[in-house]
C-alpha cells in the first residue's frame, strides 16, 4: 500500500489490519501524554482545495500524535488563487521535502492525478463526489465497535447518494468487509449507474428501515444534504425531503434497539436527521469523530512509519 486513494485499494486483510491498528492507537486518546514516536522527523502536508474542519483537523491531530510535523495548506490565500496550476502547486509543495500529502479537492479524480505526479505517498481526504476512503474506514471502525464483525451485517445508507463520496467509499469498503449495503434516496439523488454497484437500492426509507424491503437493518448511515450542490431541482422543498428521507423519531422506532445511527457530519438538524436521532442513545456521531483520529493515525502509520514500499 503506497497511497490511499480509494476504498477499493484495500484488500480485506489490509482493511482489517488498519482497523486493528486503529483500535490499538485509539488508546492514546485516553493517555496523559498523547504522543507516540513512529513518525518523528516526518513531514505531512494537508493540502486542502476545499473547505473542511473535521477531516483536516482530524488528520492534523493524527499526524501530530504520531510525532510527524503537520503543515496545513489551504487553497484560499495560497498561490492557487493567483492562478498557479494544480500540478505546479503540488510539485512546489513536494519539493520542500514533504513525506506525505493528504489532499482534498473539489474535482473527482484530482487526488489520483496528483499521486501520479509526486513521489511521496498520497492520501485522499475527499475528491469531489468520488471517494473519501478514511471516512469509510472510520465508519467501519465505529460499526465494528458497536456490532462486532461486519460480515453479513446490513447497513442502510440514506440520502443524497449522487453527490456523496462518503456513500461510494462506504459501499466499497463495507462490501470488502463482507457487509450488505442498501442505498436509500430519492431517484433524483441516485447516481447514474448505481444499479451496477454491489448493493441494493430503494426509494422507500420506511420499507428499508422496517426490514420489509431487504431484511432487518443493523445500522443506518444518514448523509448530509449538501445544500451547496442543491441547485438542480433535486427535490421540491426541504420540507418534502425531510418528510420522505429524514430520520424522524417515528422512523427511529422502526430500527432495532441496538442499531447505531451514523452521520458523517456536519448535520442539518431537522432536514436529514431529527434531534431525537442525532442525540439519542443510538447515535454514534461523536464516536465517529473519535474513530476518525484513530483510523487516520493507523493510515499514516501504515504509509509512513516503514521504509517506503510496505509489504503486506
Amino acid at each position: 500500500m503506497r497511497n490511499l486513494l480509494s476504498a477499493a485499494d484495500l484488500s480485506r486483510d489490509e482493511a482489517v489490519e488498519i482497523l486493528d491498528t486503529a483500535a490499538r492507537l485509539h488508546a492514546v486518546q485516553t493517555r496523559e501524554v498523547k504522543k507516540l514516536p513512529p513518525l518523528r522527523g516526518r513531514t505531512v502536508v494537508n493540502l486542502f482545495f476545499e473547505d473542511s474542519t473535521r477531516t483536516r483537523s482530524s488528520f492534523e491531530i493524527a499526524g501530530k500524535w504520531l510525532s510527524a510535523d503537520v503543515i496545513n495548506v489551504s487553497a484560499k490565500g495560497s498561490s492557487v488563487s493567483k492562478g498557479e496550476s494544480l500540478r505546479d502547486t503540488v510539485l512546489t509543495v513536494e519539493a520542500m521535502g514533504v513525506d506525505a500529502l493528504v489532499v482534498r479537492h473539489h474535482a473527482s479524480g484530482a487526488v489520483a492525478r496528483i499521486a501520479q505526479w509526486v513521489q511521496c505517498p498520497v492520501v485522499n481526504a475527499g475528491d469531489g463526489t468520488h471517494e473519501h476512503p478514511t471516512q469509510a474506514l472510520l465508519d467501519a471502525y465505529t460499526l465494528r465497535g458497536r456490532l462486532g464483525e461486519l460480515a453479513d451485517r446490513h447497513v442502510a445508507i440514506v440520502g443524497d447518494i449522487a453527490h456523496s463520496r462518503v456513500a461510494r467509499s462506504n459501499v466499497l469498503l463495507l462490501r470488502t468487509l463482507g457487509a450488505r449495503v442498501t442505498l436509500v434516496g430519492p431517484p433524483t439523488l441516485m447516481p447514474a449507474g448505481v444499479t451496477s454497484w454491489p448493493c441494493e437500492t430503494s426509494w422507500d426509507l420506511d420499507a428499508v428501515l422496517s426490514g420489509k424491503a431487504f431484511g432487518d437493518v443493523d445500522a443506518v448511515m444518514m448523509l448530509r444534504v449538501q445544500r451547496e450542490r442543491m441547485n438542480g431541482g433535486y427535490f421540491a422543498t426541504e420540507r418534502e425531503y425531510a418528510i420522505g428521507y429524514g430520520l424522524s423519531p417515528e422512523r427511529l422506532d422502526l430500527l432495532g434497539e441496538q442499531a447505531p445511527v451514523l452521520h458523517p457530519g456536519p448535520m442539518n438538524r431537522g432536514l436529514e436527521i431529527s434531534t431525537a436521532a442525532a442525540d439519542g442513545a443510538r447515535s454514534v456521531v461523536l464516536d465517529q469523530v473519535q474513530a476518525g483520529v484513530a483510523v487516520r493515525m493507523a493510515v499514516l502509520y501504515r504509509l509512513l512509519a516503514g521504509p517506503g514500499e510496505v509489504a503486506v
Partner: protein
Amino acid sequence: MAERHPAPAVGTAILHAADVARIVDRIAHQIIENVAKGDFDAVLLGIPTRGVPLAHRLGKRIEVFAGVALPVGSLDITLYRDDLRTRGVRPLGQTQQPEGGINGRTVILVDDVLFSGRTCRAALDALIELGRPGTVQLATLVDRGHRELPIRADYVGKNIPTSRTQAVHVLLSEIDGTDEVIVEGS
C-alpha cells in the same frame, strides 16, 4: 496475537517444558525476595508477544508462593522500536495498564529473550510515557548475550551462549501449544 504461529522451529531444544516451569518458579522466588521488602508494591509488565504469557505465569506462581497477587499488564513497544524504518511497520500489540497504574511502583518488565537490548530500550521509552515508575527491573527467560546497549537483566532464567547468526525461539503453550526453547543454526 495467538493466531500468528511461527513456522515450526528446527534446531536443538535447549529447554523442555519441565525446565521452563522450574525456571519460572525460580524467577518467581527471586522476585518475591526482592519485592517483599517493598511490601509487594510491584507490577509485572509483559512485552508482547511472549513476554505477556510469561508475566501472567510469574504472577500466578508468585501468588502461589507468597499469597500476593501482583497486578499484571502488557506493554507494546512496536511504536518505539528503532528499526521501524529499516525493517518495516508491523502490527501493534496490546498495551494494558496494570491495575493501579505504574506510578511510584516497582515495574518488572518481562520478556522471553534478551539479545541486543534494543527491545528493552524501547520498552523503557514506552514506559515513561505511561507514567513514572519507582524502579524498573527486567526479567527474561533466556539471555543469549550480544548486547548492543548498556542493559542487563535483574532476573535471568538461563544464560545460553550463542553466536550472532543463531536464532533462539521460545515456544510457550499459551501461544505455540508447547513449552520449549530451541536454538537454530550454528
